[in-house]
């Protein structure tokens, strides 16, 4: 039993924290949030590529850093803490994972080196509008090497070079790679509650599409990608939640009311203790997920769902009560509380909401027998 990151991983974390403290400051996040013409911080993205983060889990033969899933979790936590305004989750947790899981050698060779270098951005397009996106609901059509239909919202769809698209050919639900700069693709930005992350509506009209993975396995591969992304995103969420707790604790120590720090009132102390507990429970579940991810453990799906549910709850809770702890200040545009509040909600929807993941968690557990072994 060793429930902790290694010394090298702690070094990686320190390095990431130092870099992001310097380069992904609230001012950098706000620049993206407040400027409609700036969908992400391109310089930060390039520097992250140079650090080897974007190609972290890409094998060395494809120009990546060949790190483990656990290493990437360490980086993800820091990205979440610093709210880094980049397409990291779309390109790394989703598009890269999809190529690694289902891509042919040619597809990997085509995309991964450029992606690892930060020169090409990928995204993953599933949702087709309000309501649950699942194997039954997808309407997007695929035929004769082309796709037709609309995906909305697609995280980073406006800046990505290509998309992994879930579409239906006859009765088969499959994944396709689509060049977003090619013919038949039109896209426009859509605003979300968190404009520090960009999103798009993408309409495909006979856009050239190349199958990714076996025909008919689109939903299974999507689930596998979502499981892995859920664990990585859980680390972002834990990082963000911890940042909220740190902010609120610091403020509570220094803001005085009724002649004493507000952090000496139990209503505030206990509120912060409750956040701490939620963050620790989420962290524990996420750590287990990191291990399951790197070890490709048989209970990966259970671990992913547990990590996602715990992290979504913890981050939303922490972000909400961080504003409350700051009083009127917390409700202003100037204070940073709302940056986390926005991101917390967005992340908890990105791979499907809490209801969906709770359902998935219980479905996974139903396949196990609780009296003893799995």
């Amino acid at each position, binding site marked *: *039993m*060793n*429930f*902790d*990151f*290694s010394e090298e991983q702690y070094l990686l974390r320190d390095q990431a924290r130092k870099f992001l403290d310097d380069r992904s400051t609230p001012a950098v996040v706000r620049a993206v949030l407040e400027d409609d013409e700036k969908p992400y911080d391109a310089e930060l993205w390039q520097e992250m590529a140079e650090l080897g983060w974007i190609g972290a889990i890409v094998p060395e033969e494809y120009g990546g850093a060949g790190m483990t899933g*656990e290493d990437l979790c360490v980086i993800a936590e820091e990205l979440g803490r610093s709210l880094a305004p980049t397409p990291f989750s779309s390109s790394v947790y989703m598009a890269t994972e999809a190529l690694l899981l289902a891509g042919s050698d040619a597809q990997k060779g085509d995309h991964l080196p450029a992606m690892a270098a930060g020169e090409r951005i990928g995204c993953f397009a599933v949702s087709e509008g309000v309501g649950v996106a699942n194997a039954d609901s997808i309407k997007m059509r695929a035929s004769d090497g082309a796709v037709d239909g609309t995906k909305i919202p697609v995280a980073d769809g406006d800046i990505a070079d290509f998309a992994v698209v879930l579409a239906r050919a006859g009765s088969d639900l499959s994944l396709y790679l689509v060049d977003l700069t090619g013919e038949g693709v039109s896209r426009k930005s859509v605003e979300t509650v968190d404009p520090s992350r960009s999103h798009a509506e993408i309409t495909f009209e006979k856009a050239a599409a190349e199958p990714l993975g076996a025909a008919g396995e689109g939903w299974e591969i999507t689930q596998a990608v979502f499981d892995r992304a859920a664990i990585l995103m859980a680390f972002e969420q834990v990082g963000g939640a911890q940042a909220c*707790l740190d902010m609120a*604790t610091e403020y*509570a*120590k220094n803001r005085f009311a009724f002649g*004493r*720090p507000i*952090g*000496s009132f*139990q209503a*505030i*102390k*206990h509120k*912060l*203790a*409750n956040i*701490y*507990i939620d963050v*620790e*429970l*989420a962290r*524990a*579940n996420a*750590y*287990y997920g*990191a*291990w399951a991810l*790197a070890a490709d453990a048989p209970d990966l799906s259970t671990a992913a*769902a*547990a990590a996602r*549910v*715990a992290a979504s*709850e913890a981050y939303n809770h922490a972000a909400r009560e961080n504003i409350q702890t700051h009083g009127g200040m917390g409700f202003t545009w100037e204070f940073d509380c709302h940056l986390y509040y926005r991101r917390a909600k967005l992340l908890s929807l990105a791979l499907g909401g809490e*209801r969906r*993941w*709770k*359902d998935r*968690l*219980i479905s996974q*557990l*139903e396949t196990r027998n*609780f*009296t*003893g072994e799995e």
Partner: protein
Amino acid sequence: MDFNDTPEEAEFRAEARAWLAANAEPKAPGKVYKYRRGEPELIPAAREWERKKFEGGFSGIALPKEYGGRGGTRLQQIIFAEEETNYLIPPPIFSISHGMAVPTMLTYATEEQKQRFVPATLRGDEIWCQLFSEPAGGSDLAGLRTRSVREGDEWVINGQKIWTSGAHYADMAILVTRSDPDAPKHKGLTYFFLDMKSPGIEIRPIKQVSGFSNFNEVFMTDLRIPDSQRLGDVGQGWQVAITTLMNERVSSGVRPAPDFEDIFQLTKDLELEDGPAIADTAVREKLADWYIKAQGVKLIRARLVTALSRGERPGPENSISKLVSSFRRQEIAHFGMDLMDMAGGMMDPDKMPSRALYQQALLDAPGGRIAAGSDEILRNIISERVLGLPPDIRVDKELPFNQLPTGSE
């Protein structure tokens, strides 16, 4: 990171499993141990179980051999506790003995006393109780008033304790008293151990919500304790009490049911309007919340194990676990009963799922949120010791004890 056992851990786990399989009945869905807390048959059965473990080399796993322990590690102790949860074993009658009395004796008693008491306790021969809380000293333990006055080589004790679990069957006790009422409250305390059969002790059971009487009032009238049974210096009782409280079992093998596994099974077994309860969305959401908490607590213990195996001190893990688990138990009890609908309130074990486990837990769970650090006290501990928030403003720290304000309750 590695959640698999190391070869040594795996070897010990296999040994523990084999021994448990040969000596205890495995848990099964809906099955509970034959005696509940409060049933008199439980005490001899619990003693018998301790003796078996002692003879099998699984009592005092992390304690030195010279005191009857196994001479193993705390990690092994936790592994055994983990394995024990898969079996039907007695509720933790010995948790005060092992988790509080033994570590305190090992820290403060004389060599002769250690030899006399520690092995006997590990063998199940001696059960200890904890004479700490008083009507005027619960969360605020240092508000206690039981007086100790020195007379030559003896101390004379007068006063009243309350909520003393197991006083009615305990053989021995640990006791905190006030030896100097003129000193500030934390500075005038002195700590002892004693034989519960000593003259001058009167035990009156208290009937609790569940109807059982697991705890008691204990009156001490001119009770005499030899000075040789003092633990720590005169006036140092608070420090000794802290040692006792810090040593609460790193992990007890027994989590009071019902927990996630129980309610999960119940929702599979019970039918609602549209099929099994587990198919209902509202039910699934609740189950998911409890799973991540139960799993989180389990994993936080794994982190504790990692820290211990590196020789680090335990952090706030126990406070988190206790707070989260005792609240969850109460919620699960309520929810399980809701699922049983109009019949949910019935107590007859022969008519109810899991022999009325949920109904009993409803009436027992409130105590779990008060005993051994209430929810509020634990949140204070977390916010002050972990987050570094200011302590509550206090008016009682510097004044002499006998000048402190007291309420009417």
